C-alpha cells in the first residue's frame, strides 16, 4: 500500500503535512460512509499529530453538507445520513475537550425543535435536526408531544435563536399556534424566530398563525434558518 502511495505521489517521501492531509481525506471518506469506528480512530491520530482541529472540522462540515445533498436527491437514504451524522458527533466528542474557547467552529446558532402536544411522529423532525446539525447549528431536541409552554421555557434556558415546530397531523397543528400565542402573551415574541413545517402544513397557514417561516423539507428548513439568522 505504501509503495502504491509513493508511486501515486511521484515516489517522494510523505511529509508530516501530507500525512495529515491524507488522514483528513480518509476521515471525510469514513464520515461519508458512516464508519464511526474508523472516524474515531482517525480523529485520535489527527489529535496526536497536533492537527488544526478547526480546519479538520470545517472539512467535515463541508462533507456533511455533501451528504445532505446526496440525501436530498435520494442518492442515499435516511440511514446513511444518520450514520454519517453519528460519526460526526463521535469525532466531535474526541475533539471537544481540545477545542479552545473562541475557536472558529462556534455554533452558527441554536435551534430548539420539537413536535407539539399530541403529536407522536418524529421522523420529519429528526431529518430536519440532522440537516441542521450537519450545517453547523446547535440543536436542542425536545422530542414529540411537547407542551407549548415547555417549548418556551426550554428556549429561554438555552438562549435559543430559533424555535422549530414540526407537526404531522391537522389536529396537532393548533399546538404550534399556541406556542406563538404564549410568546406573544409573555411579551417575548421578538426574542425568537419561530418556524413551522410538517406534512399537513403550508405557507399560508404559517403566515396566518404568525410564524416567521415555513419550510417544505429539511433542506429548505436549513436555508430558512440561515436566512432568518443572517448566516451563510
Amino acid at each position, binding site marked *: 500500500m505504501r509503495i502504491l502511495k509513493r508511486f501515486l505521489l511521484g515516489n517522494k517521501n510523505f511529509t508530516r503535512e501530507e500525512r495529515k492531509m491524507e488522514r483528513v481525506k480518509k476521515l471525510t471518506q469514513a464520515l461519508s460512509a458512516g464508519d464511526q469506528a474508523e472516524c474515531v480512530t482517525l480523529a485520535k491520530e489527527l489529535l496526536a499529530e497536533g492537527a488544526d482541529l478547526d480546519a479538520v472540522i470545517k472539512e467535515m462540515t463541508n462533507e456533511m453538507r455533501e451528504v445532505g445533498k446526496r440525501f436530498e436527491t*435520494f442518492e442515499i*437514504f*435516511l*440511514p*446513511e445520513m*444518520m*450514520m454519517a451524522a*453519528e460519526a460526526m458527533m463521535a469525532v466531535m466528542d474526541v475533539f471537544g475537550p481540545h477545542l479552545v474557547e473562541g475557536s472558529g467552529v462556534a455554533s452558527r446558532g441554536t435551534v430548539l425543535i420539537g413536535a407539539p*402536544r*399530541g*403529536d*407522536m*411522529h*418524529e*421522523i420529519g423532525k429528526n*431529518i430536519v435536526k440532522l440537516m441542521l446539525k450537519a450545517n453547523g447549528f446547535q440543536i436542542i431536541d425536545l422530542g*414529540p408531544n411537547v407542551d407549548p409552554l415547555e417549548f418556551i421555557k426550554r428556549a429561554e434556558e438555552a438562549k435559543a435563536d430559533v424555535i422549530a415546530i414540526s407537526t404531522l*397531523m*391537522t*389536529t*396537532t*397543528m*393548533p*399546538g404550534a*399556534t399556541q406556542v406563538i400565542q404564549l410568546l406573544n402573551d409573555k411579551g417575548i415574541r421578538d426574542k425568537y424566530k419561530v418556524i413551522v413545517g410538517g*406534512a*399537513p*402544513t*403550508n405557507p399560508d397557514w404559517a403566515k396566518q398563525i404568525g410564524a416567521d417561516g415555513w419550510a417544505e*423539507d429539511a433542506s429548505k428548513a436549513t436555508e430558512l434558518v440561515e436566512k432568518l439568522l443572517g448566516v451563510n
Partner: protein
Amino acid sequence: MSYRMWEVMERANTGPFMEEHEFLYKRFIPKMREVIKKYNIKYDPQHPVPSDDSLADAVWQAAVEFFREVGVYNQDTHRVILFSDEEIKEALYSAPSSYVVGEGKDSRVFGHRKVEDTRPPFCIYSPDITYDEVDHLAACIAYLKEPLLDGLCAPLLEEFMGRKIQAWAPFELGGSLEHAMSLREACRLVGRPGVFLVAVGTAESDAAQISVSDPTWGVRTTDSRLVGSITEMMTNNSMMNKAAHYNMYGCFTGSLTGAIFGGYAGGAEGTAVLETAYHLKGLMVHQCNYQQNFPFHLKHGSNTGREMLWIVSVYSQAIARNTHLVQDSNGFGNAGPGTEMILYEAAAHSLTSTVSGANLWEHAPAHNKYHNRGTPLECRLAAEVGHAVANMGMKREQANEIANRLLAKYEHLIPEAPLGKTFQELYDVRKAIPRPEWLDMYYRVKEELAGMGLEFPF
C-alpha cells in the same frame, strides 16, 4: 391474536429495555440491511408490477426474520415487545381469512385475495382529508352514493362548531361525535344504513376513539377502527389502549401502517420488507383483523410513483402468496381532483394492488395535505379498474405493461403535480353529485384506459 391480548400488553412493560435511539441505530437499521442482503432483494424499475414469485417469497422471509429479531418498541415504556417463531406461526395459522362486515342488506365479505385473483377487491373509499364542517354531511352522502363502494372511511373534520379541533383536547371529542353522527345520518339518508364504516378518522386520541363507540349513533361492532403505527416499528400506550378497547367492544380493528420510502428502512427494498413486517405487527401487537397499507414517498407523500408501485406490488404479493391475512392497499396520489393526472394515478395504484392480491382503499389526492381536495370520482375510477382487473383475470405481465404506460403519462409531473380543484368546485354539493366537466374528464380517461386493455364491467 386477541386471545393473548393481555400477555402482549404485559410484554410492553417487561420486554428488554432500550433507548429509542438505540432501537433505531443498533437494531432496526442494521437488521434491515442484513435481511435485504441475505435474501438478495433488489428493486427493478422496469417492473413496477413484478411477476417473480421468488421475489415476493424472499420479501416475506426477510420480513418474518426482521419482525422476529427487531420486535416492536413501546415509546412509553421504552421496552421492546418480542415474539417467538412459534407464536408467529400460531398467529398466522389461527387468523381468519375473511370477515362479514357491515350490517343487514349492506353487509359484505371482506377477505383475503390471491395474486391474480379473479374475485373483485373489497373497495373502501376514502379521501383521507379534512372537509369544511358545513359540507361534511354532503361529502359523506356523495361517497355513499358510489355503486362499487363496500366500505367508507369518511371525510374528516378540522373544525367543530367553527372551532379548530385539537388532538387530546375537548374539541376533539366534540368533533369526533359530530363526525360519527353525521356519517351515520348520511348512511340512513342514502339508504345504506348498515354499510361498513371505518370510523372515525377525526379522532386521533384514544379517548376520542373510545367516546364514539355506540351502536345507535356511533361506531358499531360491525364497523371498523384503526390502530396506527408510529414510525417505524413503534407503538405507545395510547395505541395499545385503542387496540384493547376495539377488541373488547367487538368491532373490527385495522392496522394502519405506512412504511416510508427514503426513511429508516432506506430504499424500495427495505420499504417493501417493512410494510410486509407491519402485517405481523398489526396481527400480533394490536390484535388487528386486517392490514391497511399506505407506504409513501418521504418527499412526495404519495405512493403512485414507479418505486412506490413496485413496493405496493411486492408486499401485496408477499402477503397474498404466503399467508391468508386480509390486506388492503391505500392509494395516495400527487395531483389533486379535477385533473387527468389523479385519475391516471388512481388507476395505476388500483391496477397494481388488485393484480398483486390486495383489496382497495382508494384514493387520497394532492399529497394528502390540502383541505377539501378529494372527491368520490377518483375513487370510483380506482374501484372500476380493480373490478376490471379481477374480472378479466389479468396477469401481472399485462398489468406491468399498463402500469408502465400510465407512469409515462404522469411520473415526470410528480414533483410539481397540479393541485386541481376542491370538492365544492367539482361537485354540486347540495345534490352530492359530480359537475359535468369533472364527469366528462372521468369518462375520457376511462375510455383511454379501456384502450389500454382494461375491460370495464359497465
